[in-house]
């Protein structure tokens, strides 16, 4: 059974409609990658899953329950975590405080979990008392993802986790995402670095103008000459 599924979702900001009936379906434990040109509505799709834009048509089902238009707090409690595309760390808070804020909604002892997050992102351990704003771009992304992991999500929504990173850092982040996925976390990720992302994806979704253009396994999309020509830069 699918963990998350969007069917014919329409959403937008104020008047303008951005998503014109998109579908997405991921089974538990899968990595799904959403690619497409700038302004296609990729970020809006993640925001729609996290209750940050109003869905006017269609439904979002998570773990068999209708979660359409539920508030972010409610979705966190159900085990969905979201890492925004920009401004995704508290710059003036230390790395450690960022992670603690990730666990804000928890009332239990989460120190073992903190250790686990530091194990996933070893560079953060040495910088734990440094303000997150002083870190390099790659390490900031680690803080952002680490913060989201603090609710022990079943589904993590990542918006361009490798944006602006050097190739070295990029593969480092993709490695970490694979490691997180290996612990059973379902990943829905938007990526500009489409080839590398599709290479680790179970499923790929090519979006254009708020609609699904291609949907297939990651490797099938990479092999499709039409996808390659229009969306992967030839």
């Amino acid at each position, binding site marked *: 059974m699918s963990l998350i599924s969007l069917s014919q979702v329409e959403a937008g900001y104020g008047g303008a409609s951005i998503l014109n009936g998109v579908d997405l379906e991921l089974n538990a434990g899968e990595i799904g990658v959403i690619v497409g040109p700038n302004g296609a509505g990729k970020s809006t799709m993640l925001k729609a899953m*996290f209750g*940050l834009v109003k869905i006017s048509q269609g439904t979002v089902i998570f773990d068999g329950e209708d979660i359409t238009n539920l508030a*972010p*707090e409610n979705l*966190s*409690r159900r085990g969905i975590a*979201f890492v*925004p595309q920009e*401004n*995704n*760390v*508290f*710059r*003036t*808070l230390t790395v450690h*405080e960022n992670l*603690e*804020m*990730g666990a*804000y*909604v928890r009332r239990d002892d989460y120190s073992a979990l903190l250790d686990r997050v530091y194990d996933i992102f070893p560079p953060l351990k040495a910088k734990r008392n440094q303000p997150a704003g002083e870190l390099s771009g790659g390490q900031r992304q680690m803080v952002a993802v680490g*913060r989201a992991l603090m*609710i022990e999500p079943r589904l993590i929504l990542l918006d361009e986790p490798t944006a602006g990173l050097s190739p070295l850092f990029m593969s480092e982040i993709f490695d970490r995402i694979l490691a997180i996925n290996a612990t059973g976390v379902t990943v829905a990720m938007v990526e500009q670095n489409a080839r590398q992302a599709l290479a680790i994806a179970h499923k790929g979704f090519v979006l254009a103008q708020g609609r699904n253009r291609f949907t297939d396994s990651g490797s099938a999309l990479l092999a499709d000459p039409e996808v390659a020509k229009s969306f992967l830069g030839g």
Partner: protein
Amino acid sequence: MNELIFFVNKGLVGGLVIGSIYALGAVGVTLIFGILRFAHFAHGDVMTAGAFFAYALAALLTAFGFSAPLPLAILLLPVVMAATAVFAIGIDRVFYEPLRARGARPVVLVMASIGVTLMLQGLIRLIGGTGARDMYLNAPKAIYRIPTGFRDIVITQPQVILIALTIASVVALHLFLTRSRLGKAMRAVSDNPDLARVTGISLKTVTKATWIIGGSLAALAGTMLAMDVTLKPDLAYNILLPIFAATILGGIGQPYGAVAGGYLVGLSETLAVFNFSVLLRPLQPILPASWEIPANLSFVPTEYRLVVPFFILVVVLIYRPTGIFKGRVF
């Protein structure tokens, strides 16, 4: 030496006292700005309201024949601070929260807070009259003289208590913001409200904490200011400008900056009106006869005291609009 102690009494003590008042006010203004993103112009009147709560409670207890070795207004501070915190939350609930819920822009909230100022000023006059009141209902204002072998250092009881409580409040605030879950959440909201929402931090709780801190510190400042001078309806409205100068000087949204800004503005104000010829007079014998030290050597005449924070404000806004502590702490 006598002259130096005169300087300590008139310049330094005065500056620290008014600086403490400004610091306590500016911390509230800066926290409210950091969390709710608007300049709270009614903050001065929250201070005055706090002082009136203290007076009313002390008068009530005195009427019931209650007495104590310390002035009742000081003993009642915890109660008064709590009451003013509730009062501040109430103002937010009634006036600001409905606006925020409708997505009002910050400038609308600023205007609303000016409205709240006018309303509070009217209410305070309506209930308490327009005259000045003495806060010492049961015990007189104690004055301490610290002998130095020369002239005594003179400081009053409310001044000592004010400075001590200000330091204690700043330390407590620091520990709260850096150690507690809620304090860190306040910093997170101030840093990045959108991310705070995504993270599940409750803006309601953080907003309430902000008014509790702002309101109780305003009550402390207002009550102690009224005890240092007298209780008047325009007690704190008149010091709104220096409080905003201190806030901006320290970098809006930065509580430690606000404290430093408060003391800087307070000390510069007192030193600017201080008559420095008193300090120079002992040098007269060694100066050539033609160099007569003038009778008054202050930077600014006392009546123009309020010009000092205004001047600081203008200079900061022109040369360093982000405040002197940009990029630090909060």
